[in-house]
């Protein structure tokens, strides 16, 4: 067992729609010597925008139940999703700061014999990779540098906002994860209105506007000369990757921008093959771009292709 040991909290979207994201994350943790433990009896975080907007009391109570279940393992939690991260951090903040909220939540939780457990440590995988691993260490591990790949990074709101609570990166111009991307050998391009929301959260309220917000971002990214977008949140992935064709049709313009999860690019640079990562599961041409740039050419060097994925039975 290494230095790091986490309970993995994949969240609904990745669990139900993006197995390739989970795969790449597990590969990266394995390569970095991060021990990953499975969790049971926890469901949705719950979702931090719609659910909270409808009934904050229910949202807070379900979040507190999850924290109660997860606290029993005595191990920090690793989230793969900005939304889950937001719910964990926001609910913990509200509950620790407000006695009335605690009492209300505990009154509900008493009906199932639970109570709010303070102090559960929750990390977002991208933040973990920057703060605990860091660009320098990552660079040393790269065997297949992402040479010739120009990417634009989209942080997604809830990795960096609200700053007062999360205190991670500058929300107006987040650059920390870009350092990781450069460590992999990729070029990072800047683009206008970088900090704007992807629009995913209002899909259920106004789908046209949601698509317009996503389209505007991708248009700005495309114009900046990036060949691909990098995200760290499954909601942003859904919006940019899955919904991209719909945006193209609706606004009559070709975008053709592959979208990667940060962990996919790290896994590739660490020598994992695109096939074993399931890059073909993207709706955008992620796999084609990787192949066209020959990004895997250094992969078969000694030992690098021998992969043992954590917790699979291979």
């Amino acid at each position, binding site marked *: 067992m290494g230095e790091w040991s986490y309970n993995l909290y994949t969240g609904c979207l990745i669990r139900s729609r993006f197995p390739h994201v989970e795969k790449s994350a597990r590969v990266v943790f394995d390569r970095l010597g991060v021990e990953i433990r499975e969790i049971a009896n926890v469901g949705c975080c719950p979702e931090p925008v719609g659910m909270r*907007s409808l009934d904050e009391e229910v949202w807070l109570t379900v979040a507190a139940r999850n924290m109660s279940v997860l606290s029993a393992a005595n191990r920090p939690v690793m989230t793969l999703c900005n939304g889950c991260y937001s719910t964990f951090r926001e609910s913990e903040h509200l509950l620790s700061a407000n006695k009335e909220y605690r009492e209300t939540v505990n009154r509900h939780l008493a009906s199932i014999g639970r109570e709010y457990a303070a102090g559960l440590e929750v990390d977002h995988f991208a933040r973990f990779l920057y703060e605990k691993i860091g660009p320098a260490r990552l660079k040393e591990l790269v065997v297949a540098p992402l040479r010739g790949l120009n990417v634009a990074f989209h942080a997604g709101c809830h990795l960096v906002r609200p700053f007062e609570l999360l205190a991670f990166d500058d929300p107006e111009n987040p650059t920390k994860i870009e350092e990781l991307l450069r460590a992999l050998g990729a070029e990072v391009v800047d683009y206008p209105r970088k900090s704007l929301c992807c629009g995913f959260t209002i899909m259920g309220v106004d789908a046209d506007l949601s698509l317009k917000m996503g389209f505007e971002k991708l248009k700005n990214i495309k114009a900046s000369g990036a060949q691909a977008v990098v995200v760290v949140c499954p909601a942003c992935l859904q919006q940019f990757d899955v919904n991209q064709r719909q945006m193209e049709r609706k606004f009559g313009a070709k975008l053709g921008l592959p979208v990667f999860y940060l962990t996919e690019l790290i896994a590739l640079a660490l020598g994992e093959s695109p096939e074993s990562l399931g890059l073909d599961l993207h709706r955008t041409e992620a796999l084609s771009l990787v192949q066209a740039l020959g990004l895997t050419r250094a992969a078969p060097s000694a030992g690098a292709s021998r992969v043992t994925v954590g917790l699979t039975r291979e």
Partner: protein
Amino acid sequence: MKTLREFIVDHDVRRRAQACYQCGVCVGGCPVGRWREDFNPRRIVEMIVRDELEELVGSEAIWLCSACFTCLDRCPQKIEVTELITHVKNVAARLGNVPEGELKKARIIVKEGWAGLPVGRTLKQRAALHLPELDQDEELADLKELMKAMKQEGVLHRERSSPEKEKNVRD
């Protein structure tokens, strides 16, 4: 069920909005306000301060907030605009002003414990990628019990808003 006034008092909503001097920085940074003039965080805070609550909780535009927290991050007075709008939406939902799409999504969470369940195709993809098998019958029994226990207070289980309850909230 709390009345609208009680809710506002309980959450200290008006006091938290009072410090606003209407500079409009929140509007300038709003990713939704860029496209929709009817969604205006500055105006929403103003309506809270001026006690124009009934108009506010009846408005469709409040649901357009994407909860990105840009307004809070940029506000010189550190007003929690996103949270205030969340409280307003909570009241609006109880009054029956809630987009059907939002209600549908939340009901899946209430029923399944998850916002979505993996379909057969995803399970096959997971197997092909050698991901751990998912226990689709995972317990979550006490979560479902908890959801039932909260039934009386929430809006999530109600099929339609009843006029009687609406009256209660408005009083």
